[in-house]
């Protein structure tokens, strides 16, 4: 079955530095990947997505990289700010069963 997981459970980054959050997946049938941000007491919020036929997508201060050869996904956040402190999840979607499968999450802490 689908399995999406993260390498590191916690990550601390100095404010202003760039951060990279990694995610590994085992099911190559995923059509689509999404990164979510969850702040304390809130639900997951969409950050950025990428189709499985792409290897890079950029948003505002965020970039997602997909390496299908090694089944690896990463989220890069540039010039981190205190408001970036949160738990970040990757999720994979298979269009066939329409089910979103989440990874275990990484807690990102921005140090002022």
């Amino acid at each position, binding site marked *: 079955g689908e399995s999406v997981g993260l390498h590191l459970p916690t990550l601390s980054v100095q404010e202003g530095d760039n951060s990279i959050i990694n995610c590994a997946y085992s099911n190559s049938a995923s059509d689509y990947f999404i990164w979510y941000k969850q702040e304390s007491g809130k*639900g997951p919020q969409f950050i950025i997505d990428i189709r499985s036929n792409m290897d890079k997508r950029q948003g505002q201060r965020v970039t997602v990289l997909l390496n299908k050869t090694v089944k690896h996904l990463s989220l890069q956040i540039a010039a981190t700010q205190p408001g970036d402190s949160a738990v970040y999840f990757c999720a994979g*979607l298979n269009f066939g069963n329409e089910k979103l499968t*989440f990874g275990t999450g990484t807690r990102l802490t921005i140090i002022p």
Partner: protein
Amino acid sequence: DTAVSQTPKYLVTQMGNDKSIKCEQNLGHDTMYWYKQDSKKFLKIMFSYNNKELIINETVPNRFSPKSPDKAHLNLHINSLELGDSAVYFCASSHMAGHRGYGYTFGSGTRLTVV
């Protein structure tokens, strides 16, 4: 405000009780979901409904019964609550056709504590 709203935000109850969590979305989405987040922050889908029809039932115990009176509402009823049911439950909605991450919206969660 356009959103997915769920009530209550906090729910503390004793083992064996029956409780319900309500969810409503005003985004015009045709699909709604219930997710469970455990103490380790792991999020897992429980159910999904598309236009009031059950689409996904992720082998959840039958003590959990979702009900969708219309496509804007998806409620979750839990019978005979157990300690292991303690978690945060998130409602979400999206468009089924073209199910895409950017349209997938979560509520703010209901923290259920069973004592």
